[in-house]
C-alpha cells in the first residue's frame, strides 16, 4: 500500500530539508511525502489523496492567509482518522492548548527534533502495515 505523509509549510526549503532527512525511507519506498505551501493547497491534497493511504499530516501553524490552526479543524473534518501534528516556533501554553483543543495529536516546536519525528512516523507506518 502506498503510504502518504503530507507536510504543510509556507517555506519551500522545508521540502528540500525533509526529502534529505528522510531520503533513506523515501528511497526504500516506505512512504511518500507530499508538500503543500499553504493551507488551501493542503486541503486540496487531502481531498485528492484518494487511494493513497494518508497516514500523517504535519502542519506549520504560522502561515500567511489561512493559519495552521484554522486548517486543523477543516482537515480533521475531512479525515478524522488521520493524525495531525502541528509545528510551531511559538511554544507557549496558549498555542499548545488551542492546537490540542482543535484536535491536534501533538505539537512540535522548531527546530524540529527529527529523531522524534522519525520515530513518530515509524509508529504510524508500522501500525498501518
Amino acid at each position, binding site marked *: 500500500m502506498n503510504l502518504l505523509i503530507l507536510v504543510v509549510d509556507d*517555506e519551500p*526549503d522545508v521540502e528540500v*530539508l525533509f526529502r*534529505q*532527512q528522510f531520503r533513506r525511507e523515501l528511497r526504500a519506498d516506505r512512504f511518500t511525502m507530499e508538500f503543500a505551501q499553504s493551507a488551501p493547497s493542503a486541503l486540496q491534497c487531502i481531498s485528492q489523496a484518494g487511494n493513497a493511504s494518508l497516514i500523517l499530516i504535519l502542519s506549520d501553524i504560522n502561515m500567511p492567509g489561512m493559519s495552521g490552526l484554522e486548517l486543523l479543524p477543516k482537515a480533521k473534518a475531512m479525515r478524522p482518522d488521520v493524525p495531525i501534528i502541528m509545528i510551531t*516556533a*511559538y511554544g*507557549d*501554553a496558549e498555542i499548545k492548548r488551542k492546537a490540542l483543543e482543535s484536535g491536534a495529536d501533538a505539537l512540535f516546536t*522548531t*527546530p*524540529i527534533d*527529527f529523531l522524534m519525528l522519525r520515530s513518530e512516523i515509524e509508529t504510524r507506518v508500522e501500525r498501518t502495515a
Partner: protein
Amino acid sequence: MSRRSKAGGKPVKTRGRKTKAAHLDKSPAVREETEVVRLRRELDEALERQTATAEVLTVIASSPHDAQPVFDRIAKNAAPLCKAQFCYVFRFDGELVHFAAQSGYASTPEVFLTGYPLPPGRTSAATRSILTGAIEQIPDVLADPDYRHGSQAEVLSFRSIVAVPMLKDGCPLGTIAMARSQAGKFPDWQIDLLRTFANQAMIAIENVRLFNAEQQRTLQSWELSESLENLRAAQDRLVQTEKLASLGQLTAGIAHEIKNPLNFVNNFSSVSVELIDELRGALASAQLDGKLRAEIGDLADTLQANLDKVMQHGKRADSIVKNMLLHSREGSGEHRPVDLNAVVEESLNLAYHGARVEKQGFNITLERPYDPNAGDVDLFPQEITRVLLNLISNGFYAATERKSQTNDGNYEPTLAAATKNLGDRVEIRIRDNGTGIPPEVKDKMFNPFYTTKPAGEGTGLGLSISHAVIVKQHGGSIEVDTEPGKFTEFRIVLPRAGLSLLKSGERG
C-alpha cells in the same frame, strides 16, 4: 545694668511738657535752679523713652519667630511713659481686629476676651484706626457719636483713647491704643512715641512673617529635593522597565525572524554531515586512482570540519535567540504560593551541581542563612529559579575568577544565599566574595546584551532577564551592593502576595 546707662548718655532732643507755671515770680538763682531741674527732668524722661524703645528692640531681636513678647513689652512700656492707665495692642489679619496684649490690668479683662475679634469700624479707636489707616483720637468716649463701647469704657474706667496703626506699605497690620481716665487730646510727643512703638511692632510682625516664609521655603526646598530624588529613582526604574519592555517586543520579533532561517542552517548542516558520510561510503566502492581518492577524501574532511563549525556556531546563535525569546516572554508557567527557602535551596543545589559538571575541580563554600520564618510566597517558581540560578552562577564565576587572580592562599571562595521575612514582603540575598563589580559596569549591568564575559560565555541577557522577572513580573525590586575585589551582593525583595493583586500572567 541701669536704665540710664542703657541709653548711653547721648544728647537727646526733648519734646513738650514744659510746665510754664514753675517760672513765675522766681529770683534768677531760683529760676536757674528750676531750669536745671526742668532740664534734668526732661533728660530723664527722654532717657526713659529711649530705654523703653531700646528694650522693645532687644525683645524683637531675641524673638524673631514670635511677635507676642514684643506686643507684651510694648503694652507694658508705653502706658507708664505716657502716664496713661491702659495700653492695648491689637493685630489685624486683613478681616478682623484681634486683641493681642494689654497693660493696666492684673489680668486681661473679660471684655477683650469676649468682645474681640471685631471687624474694622468706627465703634472703637482701635477698629477705627484700622478702618482709616490713620491715627485716631477719641478725646471723650462719652461725647463721640460713633463710639459704641460705652459700657466697656465704664467698666474699664477711661474717657479718652488714642490708637496708632502699625502700617506696612500703607496697610494696617495692627494698632496700639492707649487710654486715660481723663478726657482730652493726647499730646504730640505721646503720639510720636506710640508711632515709634507701632513701627517696632510692625517690624516684629514682618520678622515673624519672613522667618516663617524662610522656614517654609527651607522645608519646601528640602521636600522638593527629596521628591526630586524619588522622582529620579522612579524615572530610572521606569526607563529601565520601558526599555526592557520595548526591547522585549523588539527582540521577540527579531528572534522569531532569525529563528526560522537559523533552524534551516542547523538542520541542513546536520543533514549535510550525514550526506558527507554517505559520500565517503559511495567513494569507497568507486573506481578511482589513489591521488584523486586522497584529494576527494581531503575535501570531504574539510567540508565535514566546516559543517561542524557551522553547526557549532548555529547552536550558539540558537541559544542566544532562545535567551532573547525568554527575555520577552512573560507570565509563562503558573504562579502559586511556594516555600521561599525551598526555592532558594533548590536553585542553589542546581547551580552548584551544574557548575561542578561544567567545570572540572570547581569548588566553593556555600552558606545558607535561611530565615525559618520566610514562609510561602506567591510567585512564578520557574522564573524565580531562573533568576536565582543566574545570580548564583554569576557569583560562582566571580569567586572563581578572584581565586584564579589572587595569590592569597587563604582565599576561600564563598557564596551565601540568605532569606528574610519582612512581613508582607520577603528578601533574598545572594552574596559572593568574588571580584566585585567596577562602577562603570554596575551602571550598565542590567542592560540587555551587556556582558563582561569572554565571547561565547555569556549572552548579556541574564541580569536583564532577572530585572524584568523581579520588577515587571513580580512587582519586586533588585539592587546590588558591591566592592571591587571584595564582594557582590544582590538583594531581591518580593511582595509576599503581590501576584494575587496583579493580573495573573499579565503581559507588558
